[in-house]
Structures are given as structure tokens and as C-alpha cells.
């Protein structure tokens, strides 16, 4: 466990040195553009525009980092053979995976926090009304982070047994499917066989449910987000990550490094 922490810090250092955090510049540009836009259009919806644009940008940028760096966390090290020296040391394979996961989640946390700070700054600049959207926005950002952790775990899992390109496709596919689980669950069709509908229903429970993490509309309108949902999402993300990482570790532990 201590070793997983050391690996995590090094993974964070790698991300910083590889200039991953430079994406913040891009986010800043989005926020500036949003503020200008607000100046043009708004009568009373400034906050809504800023929050929607800001949260969307935080989510998209985070997803890109989570997927593209996530699939490379272990596979890149296997390709470059940087893992050889490390795994000959007293590091268990699961400690390495956990460290890599933790490192990228740490990177995403720092990155997301910086973007959230930018968002709040933009909000404070346009703020006129007495509405309090801050608390809801904070929860929305937290949910995005949970979602990102889940995506990283999935990317890591796929990269343990397939190529980076396929891993990206699988992870993206699961993410998109995970946005439609409710629809899948309630899907009714005359032409579809009963068995297939049951299968779909089961699948909808197995797939990572990404719908629950999306509270953008509530945040934009400053509606409070129920504590139950916060607890439920936290537990769901933790549990799902744990299961995915356990499977990943089981695969990676048996893997021959080429």
C-alpha cells in the first residue's frame, strides 16, 4: 500500500512533466469566451450559461485525459519496458496498478480543482442576483470527478489485456452505453424477443451507470442536490472502481511482460 502511494506520486509527477496540466490554458480560454458571450446575450441567465459551459468543459477535458492517459498508464510502461526494473523490486502487481490509478486520479483531481476555481472566478464576475448556485456546482464537480475515476479504472482494465487503441474504443463505448442505462432498462419493443429484453435489463445493471453523475441541469438552475444522491454516487463509484481494479489486477498479475 505504501508502495502504491510512491507509484502514485511518481505518476502524478509524470503527468505534470508531460505537460498534461497545460489543458488548463484551454479551459481558461473557454471560460473567457463564455464570459464574453454572457456579456452579449444575457438577461438573468448569465450564471446558467457560465455553469453549463464550465461544467461541460470540465467534463470533456477530464474525460479526454482519463481515457487517453488511462489506457497508457500501464501499457506504455510495458511497451517502453520501464516496468522491468520496477517490477523486479518488491512491488506487487496490484500495488503498481493501484498506484497508477491513484496517480492519475490525483492528477485529475488537481486539474479539476483548478478548473472549478476558474469556474467560480467567472461566476463571481458575472454574478448579479442573490441566487446561490455555488453549492450545487461544487457537487456537480465532485460527481464529474467520481465519473472520471470510474473511467480511469475502466481504461486501466482494458489496457491490461488489449491494445491501447481497442482500449480507447471499449472505454468510450462503455461510457456512452453507460449514459443510457435507464433507457435500456425500460426499453419496450414489440419486435424484440423476451429473452433479449431480459438480457438488456441485466446488462443495464451491469454497465457502469454514468447517468446518475450528471447533475448539470440542477447545478445550472441552482437547485439543491439531495444528500442521498451524493452518498449513493460516492458509494457506487467506490464499489465499481474496486471491482474493476480487482479484475484488472487479477489479469495483470498473470500477465507475462513481453
Amino acid at each position, binding site marked *: 500500500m505504501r508502495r502504491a502511494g*510512491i507509484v502514485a506520486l511518481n505518476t502524478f509527477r509524470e503527468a505534470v512533466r508531460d505537460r498534461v496540466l497545460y489543458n488548463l490554458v484551454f479551459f481558461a480560454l473557454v471560460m473567457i469566451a463564455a464570459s464574453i458571450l454572457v456579456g452579449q446575450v444575457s438577461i438573468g441567465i448569465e450564471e446558467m450559461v457560465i455553469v453549463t459551459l464550465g461544467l461541460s468543459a470540465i467534463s470533456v477535458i477530464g474525460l479526454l485525459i482519463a481515457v487517453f492517459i488511462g489506457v497508457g498508464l500501464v501499457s506504455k510502461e510495458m511497451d517502453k*519496458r*520501464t516496468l*522491468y526494473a520496477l517490477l*523486479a*523490486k518488491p512491488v*506487487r502487481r496490484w500495488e503498481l496498478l493501484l498506484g497508477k490509478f491513484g496517480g492519475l486520479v490525483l492528477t485529475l483531481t488537481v486539474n479539476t480543482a483548478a478548473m472549478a476555481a476558474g469556474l467560480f472566478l467567472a461566476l463571481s464576475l458575472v454574478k448579479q442576483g442573490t441566487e446561490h448556485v455555488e453549492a450545487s456546482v461544487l457537487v456537480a464537480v465532485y460527481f464529474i470527478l467520481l465519473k472520471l475515476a470510474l473511467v480511469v479504472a475502466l481504461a486501466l482494465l482494458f489496457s491490461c489485456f488489449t491494445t491501447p487503441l481497442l482500449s480507447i474504443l471499449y472505454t468510450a463505448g462503455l461510457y456512452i452505453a453507460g449514459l443510457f442505462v435507464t433507457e435500456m432498462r425500460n426499453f419496450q419493443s414489440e419486435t424484440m424477443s423476451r429473452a433479449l429484453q431480459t438480457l438488456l435489463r441485466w446488462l443495464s445493471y451491469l454497465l457502469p451507470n454514468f447517468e446518475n453523475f450528471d447533475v448539470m441541469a440542477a447545478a445550472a438552475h441552482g437547485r439543491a442536490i439531495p444528500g442521498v444522491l451524493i452518498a449513493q454516487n460516492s458509494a457506487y463509484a467506490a464499489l465499481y472502481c474496486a471491482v474493476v481494479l480487482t479484475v484488472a489486477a487479477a489479469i495483470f498479475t498473470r500477465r507475462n511482460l513481453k
Partner: protein
Amino acid sequence: MATAAIEIENLTKDYPFGFLHLKKKTSLEGLTMRVEEGEVFGFLGPNGAGKTTTIKLLVGLIFPTAGTARILGKSISDISMHADIGYLPEQPYFYDYLTATELLDYFARIHDLPAQERKARVDGMLKKVGLETARKIQLRKYSKGMLQRIGVAQAILHDPKVVILDEPMSGLDPVGRREVRDVILELKQAGKTVLFSTHILSDAEMLCDRVGVIVGGKLRGVGAPDEIVGMKAQGMEVLFEYAGAAGGLQPLLSKATQTGKRYRMQVPEADLYATLQQLGSAGAKVLSVTQVKSTLEEYFMHLVEADRAQAPAVEVSGK
């Protein structure tokens, strides 16, 4: 018998390949050998012999198809074994965004070296492998030989009891080779066990207590370097200078090869003194007398050729 530093039993590794991995290629076949504590053991073999495969199995990077191995009495699947071994991978590559100091510090943390000891240890290692001046340079800017050096440093950083080096001399300049030789000798002096693979026979002859020769995934011979080649001297080579007329030396000179005034000649060991006397009395100047023995190299070539000769058979059994 005392526990060996490295004990390998019937170690076998197949690599599956082809459609659905139905075919397999045997890279290592029933390897059984021991490396005693405090020994420097050379692992010799041509390209593709299975040296790297064996070493990767030992350090747990790949898993055996059959067989077992123990290091210092602990199974290779036991994680605590890793605290006592040092490993230099073949053509090592490290995190290129780190500097040499940072890399060693990272590994020192992994090895749980106490904070106050870390800096001194890291500095000492960098000095030992001649990288003090490059310590603050990111590894992406390192040359091949410099990477090899940092690789050696990380392998011995934590003062392991067993050091396993996969081609430690490759990519090094003469100075670097010499330094690595010194490192290996130093390890031996300190009572460590060293297993290293190499193609460079002179290094093995110079450094090893014993060598093992592996060809085509099979161990073909183990023993002291001189034992394995059969120390039997094949004769003596005499180098002498002679400017005079052939005269009475004619029978001798006809057997020698001449370069200017110099002659080179091989005589059976039993005839050496008679020959020297003859040369002396004729006024020839003897420059050197050396023993001619079959070298490790010849032995090696012999094995490889023998293997080539039966290559078709090996190929069939591999499929």
C-alpha cells in the same frame, strides 16, 4: 547441502503463437542448475538461446510453463524475495522524464530505504557508475551507455544479496566495461552472488567462478571456465627472433611462420625445453613462450555448430 543462492529446477517456458495461440515455441527447456552463494556465474549463449528468458523468469516478469526456481531459499513467486535481488534488464530503459538522481531516489523509496540514508546512497551509486556530472539531466537525454550505467546503479542500489545482470557490458565503452567489471568484482568481494549473461567470452573468463552455456533453450554445460574448456594445453607457442643463416636450425625454422626477423612456432609441451636450448645455442633471441589452450570461445563455437547441425530436428520439435 546449504541453500544455494539461485536454485533452478526443470524451468521451462513456452511462448504460444499463431492462430488462437495453438502453436508454441519452447524458449527454455527443462533448465536445472544452481548458483552457490558468493559465486560469480556467467550465463553464456548465442542470440536467442534463452538467457533473457531465464532471467525474466527468475525476477518474476514472466511465469514458467513448468518448473520452479528459488532464490536464497525463497520461491520466485514470493514477493519478499525481491527485496534481496538486484536486476539489470537487457537494454534498460527508464522513466525518461526523471533525472538520474530522481530515478534512484524513487527506487530507493520503493525499497524502503530510510530518508537520511537515501541521499548518500544515491550519490554514492551515481559516483560508482560515473554519472555524477549527469545527475541532473533527464534520462531522455541519456546515451545508451549512460542508461546502461544508471541501470547498473539501480540494480545494486539497495545492497542486494543476489545481483542478476542481463548483458551488463553491452553498449559500454572500454572504460565503462572496465567499471562494470570492477563493480562485479567488488560485489564478489562483498560476498554477493552475481549472475550475469553475456556474449563476451573474455569477460566471462575473467570474472566468473563458473559459467553455464545455454544453446537453443537447453543447458549444454556448466563448470569453471577452465574446466569447461578442458584446461589441457594443446602446446606451447614460441616467438623468437633470428637473423642468422638457417644452418642447423633449418628443421625448426621450416616449421615456423616467419614475419621479417620474427618466427612463430608451436611445439608440443614435452619438446619445449629441447627447442629452447636449440634456439639458444644457435643465437636466436626468444621473445615469448605462451600456452596454447582451447578457449571458451572455441568451446562455444563448437556447441553452436553442433546445435546448427541438428537444427532441423530442433525446429520440428519446436512446432
